[in-house]
């Protein structure tokens, strides 16, 4: 697997994809022959995790540039796949279609935000940071602005944002592992953690890169196959993305027919926690322009500040490869994101249309309660019906579902074989693992490279640095798992907070570092510190009953944080002296793609 491994990549992953498809076929034959649903679930998760572990082992390395930036030789398209897996978390995979299903247009600001951010990454940052030749994001801040304080502040912002994010991901791996392997969540979290560490411990960025490509292939098959299958089975269209217009307008028709009846608070008390009913229009505009735009904007700026995404573009062979690679990343993300609304549409229509055999609205309550899949998902605490008005039939406002059920239960409702549910579990696991790996590595690398090597012990040997990096990886992983096991907050909420934290502290220090020569150390430190603190303060204020202003909510507090960061950075920079000639020259160098990188190959 060494030497011309890079040249053989298409072949290696081609064989891998073929093998995975063959595995799916074998499993469906086994299902026909009577293998139980539980065994199929275990096989899917165990088989895929074992493959990732093998890739992780084969990618082991003792070199700093392989460990930190995968030797800077990852080809454009493969880096795009790895970034897509890095990017699409358990939340994207399991919760996104559910969010669209329940909240419609207002929620779809996330789709626009989580894709539009890549335009900022490609045009403002990625190629320049690649030219810089840094190992980590704080490495750029520390070298561009100079001084240990700026480097340290960048590590702090990075850690706050990434750690908020990673607990959600470990939580997601734990949820899936506990369902698929049938073990209690508290233990499943650690099973998930060990799987995550198997990918990254030995090979660092190199191991994570090649497992993420493998994970992307699993997750995209696991997402698209059911969407196409369900659409064809329902007769909705051969290619759902282009053919669901009738279904979308049919949902609008049904919404008008049923109406959105508001339930009394008393009735809602009966509904199990975490479940929701359909209360918002599917395709109509149901949010104000500012609510939509502010959420999209926060997610876009957050995307451009999150270190686990940015560091993927440090691994390409050249600056122009970094630019193209951003395009490929977004293309691979687009494949999944554009399918989520289609899944939400199919799922909703199949449940609420009384003329379809799967439709339950308008049936009698006892009839619905007798359906097999209803009983299964009711037991899993993801579905609930209750006859509030006592008329014996199920109304739209009397049906409740958990957000995860849209992805997890729709295949079963549509009557697909169980093998698809096993596949979906493997896909969700791949999505959560790949993101967790990227994040844990981002934190551990920043602390080991920037705090330990650059600040504490600049004379440390490579071997010692890599030992520190690996120890930190394990420590941070366990800390994340321990917090995840406490189950403090929901998956999606903490993901959105991570974006807000990242943009509060890092967006302007990163962008102005390239685009404004006059930006100096004092300005950057002030920008990072005041941005993070004011963003966090705003969050606490709103969470503790504060009214907020300008329509900025707890989901978009980064808009306030980053505005403070920008003002602080500009004002403080202009009040203090301009950066020295060497720094100015460094910025000039960063702006042209040719020539040597600012930091050496080994640093």
């Amino acid at each position, binding site marked *: 697997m060494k030497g011309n491994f890079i040249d053989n990549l298409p072949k290696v992953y081609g064989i891998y994809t073929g093998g995975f498809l063959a595995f799916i076929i074998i499993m469906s034959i086994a299902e026909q022959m009577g293998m139980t649903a539980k065994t199929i679930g275990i096989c899917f998760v165990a088989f895929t995790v074992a493959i990732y572990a093998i890739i992780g082992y084969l990618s082991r390395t003792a070199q700093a540039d392989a460990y930190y930036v995968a030797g800077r030789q990852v080809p454009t398209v493969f880096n795009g796949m790895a970034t897509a897996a890095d990017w699409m978390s358990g939340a994207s995979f399991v919760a996104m279609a559910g969010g669209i299903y329940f909240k419609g*247009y207002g929620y779809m600001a996330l789709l626009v935000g989580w894709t*539009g951010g890549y335009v900022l990454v490609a045009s403002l940052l990625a190629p320049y940071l690649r030219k810089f030749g840094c190992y980590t994001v704080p490495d750029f801040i520390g070298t561009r602005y100079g001084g240990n304080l700026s480097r340290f502040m960048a590590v702090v912002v990075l850690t706050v944002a990434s750690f908020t994010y990673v607990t959600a991901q470990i939580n997601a791996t734990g949820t899936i592992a506990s369902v698929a392997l049938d073990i209690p969540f508290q233990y499943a979290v650690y099973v998930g953690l060990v799987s995550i560490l198997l990918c990254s411990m030995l090979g660092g960025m190199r191991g994570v890169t090649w497992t993420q490509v493998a994970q992307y292939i699993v997750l995209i098959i696991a997402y698209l196959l059911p969407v196409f299958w369900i659409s064809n089975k329902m007769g909705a269209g051969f290619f759902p993305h282009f053919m669901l217009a009738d279904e979308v307008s049919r949902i609008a028709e049904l919404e008008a027919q049923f109406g959105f009846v508001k339930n009394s608070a008393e009735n809602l008390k009966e509904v199990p926690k975490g479940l929701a009913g359909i209360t918002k229009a599917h*395709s109509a505009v149901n949010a104000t*322009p500012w609510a939509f735009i502010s959420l999209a904007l926060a997610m876009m700026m957050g995307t451009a500040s999150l270190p686990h995404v940015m560091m993927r573009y440090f691994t390409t062979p050249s600056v*122009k490869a970094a630019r193209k690679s951003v395009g490929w990343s977004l293309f691979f993300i687009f494949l999944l994101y*554009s399918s989520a*609304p289609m899944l939400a549409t199919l799922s909703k229509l199949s449940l609420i249309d009384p003329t379809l055999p799967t439709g339950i609205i308008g049936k009698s309550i006892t009839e619905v309660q007798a359906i097999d899949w209803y009983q299964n998902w009711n037991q899993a605490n993801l579905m609930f019906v209750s006859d509030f008005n006592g008329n014996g039939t199920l109304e739209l406002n009397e049906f409740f579902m958990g957000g995860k059920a849209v992805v997890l239960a729709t295949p079963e409702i549509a009557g697909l074989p169980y093998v698809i549910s096993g596949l979906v579990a493997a896909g969700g696991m791949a999505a959560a693992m790949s993101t967790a790996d990227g994040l844990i590595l981002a934190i551990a690398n920043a602390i080991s490279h920037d705090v330990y090597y650059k600040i504490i012990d600049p004379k440390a040997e490579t071997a010692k640095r890599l030992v520190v990096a690996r120890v930190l990886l394990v420590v941070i992983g366990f800390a994340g798992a321990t917090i995840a096991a406490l189950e403090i907050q929901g998956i999606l909420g903490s993901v959105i907070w991570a974006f807000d934290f990242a943009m509060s502290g890092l967006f302007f220090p990163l962008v102005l570092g390239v685009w404004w020569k006059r930006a100096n150390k004092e300005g950057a430190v002030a920008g990072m510190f005041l941005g993070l603190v004011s963003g966090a303060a705003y969050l606490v204020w709103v969470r503790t009953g504060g009214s907020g202003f300008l329509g900025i909510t707890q989901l978009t507090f980064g808009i306030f944080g980053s505005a403070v960061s920008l003002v602080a950075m500009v004002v403080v920079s202009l009040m203090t002296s301009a950066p020295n000639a060497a720094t100015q020259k460094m910025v000039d160098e960063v702006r042209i793609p*040719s020539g040597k990188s600012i930091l050496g190959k080994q640093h």
Partner: protein
Amino acid sequence: MSKQEQHWEKSRGLLFMTLAIWFVFSIGIFLFGAEMNEVTGPFGYPLTYWFTCQGSLGAFVILIFWFANRQEKIDEEFGFSERGDD
């Protein structure tokens, strides 16, 4: 003006153009979300709905590749492109 300054000037021009297009698809059209949704868009979906599911997302993908190609041309024009890889 030195070669390097000219190169940067052109790169900055491209950046502003890219950000302007980005602004239209990520922010501009959603200022008129409610009005636009009355119109039937591609494949028969309501127009704003289509932009949120496919249109804007696809536009971003195309925009990034377009930007990357234009920037490469600018780099070549001033002799700043990298050799020997990709």
